[in-house]
């Protein structure tokens, strides 16, 4: 269809969107954005716009899916039909089924599943606009939504990708780099526990490049982790301010 742009990174090491190899895209995080959900979060990661909502711990529905010895975490990753250039059918694609599974498995290690037998937590992720790296941004938002729902967690889960573009290992690939680049390595990480909970890769990398990409992605995760904590605190600052104002009025 379209010819490859000659270079995704120029001679000075600047990428198409003006970033250097180790720069993240601008990220905006908001917690408690939906009033009906027990917990919710919104992320803007570059042009990605993603909403996540968490419900629970609550009684499993249907009941027969409940487990006697632990909580069940369910995740649904879903892309809105208008989130991409060509309309995406709203029916779940094979990609979405796989991503729902890997997102769930990236969040499970953070939860104390065995402390909540017979219950379930549901996490719904809606990608409103996609721009490369949606699974990572979804995990970052979903972890915040679960935390916002008040479900105890071992650590927040934060995700970020690294990859290879024009023979350089770069952080946080955007859509074009993802499609035309040589490799993509999404990583989800719990920084306080130094635990990797999601790791995928496609493309071809030498073992050394692979290691470098994983390390770089973990560095990116640590930066986003700080923003996550800030976003959680901010919500409660707002709650406190409103409460104080109410008290003064009374």
């Amino acid at each position, binding site marked *: *269809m379209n010819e490859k742009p000659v270079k995704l990174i120029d001679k000075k090491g600047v990428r198409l969107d003006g970033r250097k190899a180790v720069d993240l895209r601008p990220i905006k995080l908001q917690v408690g954005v939906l009033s009906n959900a027990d917990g919710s979060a919104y992320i803007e990661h570059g042009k990605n716009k993603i909403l996540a909502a968490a419900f629970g711990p609550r009684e499993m529905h249907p009941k027969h899916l409940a487990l006697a010895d632990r909580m069940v975490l369910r995740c649904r990753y879903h892309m809105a039909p208008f989130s991409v250039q060509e309309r995406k059918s709203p029916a779940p694609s094979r990609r979405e089924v796989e991503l729902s599974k890997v997102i769930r498995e990236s969040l499970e290690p953070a939860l104390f599943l065995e402390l909540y037998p017979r219950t379930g937590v549901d996490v719904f992720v809606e990608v409103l606009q996609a721009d490369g790296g949606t699974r990572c941004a979804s995990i970052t938002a979903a972890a915040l939504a679960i935390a916002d729902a008040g479900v105890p967690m071992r650590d927040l889960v934060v995700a970020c990708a690294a990859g290879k573009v024009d023979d350089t290992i770069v952080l946080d690939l955007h859509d074009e780099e993802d499609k035309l680049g040589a490799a993509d390595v999404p990583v989800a990480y719990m920084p306080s526990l130094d635990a990797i909970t999601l790791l995928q890769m496609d493309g071809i990398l030498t073992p050394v490049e692979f290691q470098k990409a994983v390390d770089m992605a973990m560095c990116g995760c640590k930066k986003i982790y700080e923003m996550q904590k800030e976003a959680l605190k901010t919500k409660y600052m707002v709650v406190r301010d409103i409460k104080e104002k109410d008290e003064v009025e009374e």
Partner: protein
Amino acid sequence: MSSLITKVRLKQISQCIESGKRLDERGLHDYRQIKIEQGVIEKAEGSARIYLGKTEVLVGVKVETGEPFPDTPNEGVQTVNAELVPLASPNFEPGPPDENSIELARIVDRGIRESHAIDTEKLCIEAGKKVFVVFVDVYVLNYDGNLIDASALAAMAALMNTKMPNYEVKDGELKTKQGFIKLPMKSHPITVTIGKINNQLIIDPQLEEEQVMDSRISIAVNEKGNICAVQKGGSGYFTPQQILEASKLAQGKAAELRKKLDW
């Protein structure tokens, strides 16, 4: 894919691994016995059946003509599908593919696709209009753990065994000629799955080990020793150190298998 396993058995498995052995006397980093038969289904363009211990997978390849994807007008199309057939395990049920079979198909697909195993550019008949479509169907016949490695090996063996009709293009029409040609291949990736039980890394987990393991990581390695696809699965985690260890293990094992299979 899991079913109940008693605490006693769990303890037994972990103790076994702790002492550097497996339930079936294998070492921690040994594969079970591998046997591959090629060309077992005559009506398919290519096929292979693998026995990995008691795990049994049959892969059939069909080659048909179809339309290329708009973003790759002069490349053939590769599709992988996996069926967890109910006769393979008491826990498999009939019905549309669930997340386990979709994940399995997508891991096998990624290993083949990202290593450019099939030379898709040679499968173009008329750019933008007609190309060959290679259907790889993974059929699990007996489930005793590590479907990923078994399916990936069987899929590659089936593709290497695939013969497609010899053809020529006359006035935009496809004419088949006498004889067959081999499916054009560029690379032979090997996928190695590593499980984690009690912070120990084991290769080729069998069913009971899969039921107690924290997590797994599957790494596809090409003939140059480069990594071409990775997938972590399961509800546990890996430390960065374990990832490094796993990637080294996978490279070593892939090279060993490659030598043994003469790929």
